[in-house]
């Protein structure tokens, strides 16, 4: 039987890319627990007793956690554990679906984004999102896709060309598309499309970038490119990434939250969670005994 520790060592050896070098201990005492009180610790975003429903089905059953600024936080867990629903609550995308309900608090810089007078549209331009399947706008060129979030909202862009180059550079796509900026976004490969979607989100200079299994529709090479990307943009922007791939979580994140059946089982430093998991359930999951 392989232990969690051995497993962690294995994946450290095999991980070719993107192991975060410096892992700041982030208020470790506070990070170890899930209660609402402790979640009030410093952080870019703070979730307090979040519940989410689809119709009568309760998908998220009271989760509290805190997202560290300019760090990568991974959310892992078996399929159907509510991890996608959870991050869709962080930029108010959950309520877009009919029958969807949310309760609880999500503080972005100490302002509850579920406060009545808050416009979800504004929140979404501060908290960007990358989806599971690449979804560039098919009727727009690569360039227009990058600028879409600003242009379609009527924002005047002082130097559009520079912005396009900058964010495509950040998304590690500039080299591949600099000569075909006017081609349709749909003409790119899947991995390129996903990086285009990341660039499109970055163009708005979001404070937080939510990524919902961004690599699950991609092959291993495209996946490793996205992972490198997460590592580099994680320095300029707070990232919350959902993944069902534990190795990926271990490679790219500073903190990891393990969800099971709509509840937060454990939340800790990625290193600690994968080497010395505090709960039996976590250990069972990361060693592959279920899920």
């Amino acid at each position, binding site marked *: 039987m392989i232990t969690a520790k051995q497993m962690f060592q294995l994946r450290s050896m095999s991980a070719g890319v993107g192991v975060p070098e410096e892992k700041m201990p982030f208020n470790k005492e506070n990070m170890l627990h899930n209660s609402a009180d402790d979640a009030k610790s410093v952080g870019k975003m703070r979730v307090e007793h979040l519940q989410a429903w689809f119709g009568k089905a309760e998908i998220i059953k009271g989760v509290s956690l805190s997202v560290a600024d300019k760090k990568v936080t991974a959310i892992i867990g078996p399929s159907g554990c509510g991890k996608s629903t959870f991050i869709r609550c962080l930029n108010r995308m959950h309520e877009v679906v009919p029958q969807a309900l949310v309760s609880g608090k999500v503080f972005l810089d100490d302002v509850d984004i579920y406060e009545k007078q808050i416009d979800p549209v504004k929140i979404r331009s501060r908290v960007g999102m990358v989806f599971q*399947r690449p*979804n560039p706008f098919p*009727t727009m060129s690569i360039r227009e896709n990058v600028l879409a979030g600003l242009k379609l909202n009527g924002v005047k862009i002082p130097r559009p060309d520079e912005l396009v180059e900058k964010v495509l550079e950040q998304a590690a796509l500039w080299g591949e598309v600099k000569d075909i900026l006017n081609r349709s976004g749909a003409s790119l490969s899947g991995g390129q499309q996903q990086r285009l979607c990341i660039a499109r989100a970055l163009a708005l200079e979001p404070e937080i970038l939510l990524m919902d299994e961004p690599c699950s529709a991609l092959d291993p090479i495209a996946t490793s490119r996205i992972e490198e990307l997460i590592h580099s943009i994680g320095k300029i922007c707070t990232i919350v990434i959902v993944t069902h791939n534990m190795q990926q979580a271990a490679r790219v994140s500073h903190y990891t939250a393990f969800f099971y059946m709509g509840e937060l089982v454990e939340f800790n430093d990625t290193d600690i969670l994968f080497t010395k998991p505090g709960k039996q359930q976590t250990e069972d999951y990361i060693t592959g005994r279920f899920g």
Partner: protein
Amino acid sequence: MGTRVYRKRKCVDWVMRSWCIVATLFAVVPLFSVLAYVFVKGIGGLSWNFFVELPKPVGELGGGVGNAIVGSFVLLGIASVVGIPVGVLGGVYLSEFGSNRFGKAVRFCADVMAGVPSILIGIFVYTLVVLSMGSPSALAGGIALSILMLPTIIRTTEELIKLVPTSLREAGLALGMPKWRVILRVVLPAGMSGIATGVMLAIARAFGETAPLLFTAGYNRFWSASLDKRISSLPVQIYEYASSPYEEWHQQAWAAALILVLIVLILNVSAKLLTSSRSHAR
């Protein structure tokens, strides 16, 4: 498997196949004979003058249907200006906000309207517009045609907008766009070529309609001076000529019919081309 069973199956296959072919021929023959007959009868009457001149009085040779061609396009223009925005926006409403009772009622009405005999629409516009304006007019004819086009445009727009994947809407919303902007700038453009096809088909249908125009646009032997006056159109012109007792007018009716068929054909083919260029883009 025995050879007898095998032979029997082959036989049944042959019979069924022949049956299908014969049935197809029965369906296609009238279609092509109409086209061929119109072509043969009409081609002799076509000349440059026929396209540009006014009808001449009985007994005089020559004359054309220039005013009717122009009239048809004027009517269609009015119908499009009224019908396309209302129809497309109605379709957007049904697909984006129409899952309530009201939406269901509208959808049902649109479906019923698509099957209503067009002469009823003519009578409706007659009582509503013509009677209050005092005489048939281009405006009334255009409104009648726009009502005729509405159900097709509403329903095709709705169906095509529903086909636009949710992921695109979510992409727009996640970029901090309000819903109306997502619909306008992301969803509509993505469905545009399909919607354009639906609109073209609606236009092609309206172009050939006679019944709603008889009491609304009326008939005019001369160039129409303004939109509140009677205006000629190809279908009504054909109706006038064909129901007259004069041989040379019958000949002109055939020629006008050929022009009508050709224009409708062009509209339909361009609708097809729009659809296929869309499937290429995918």
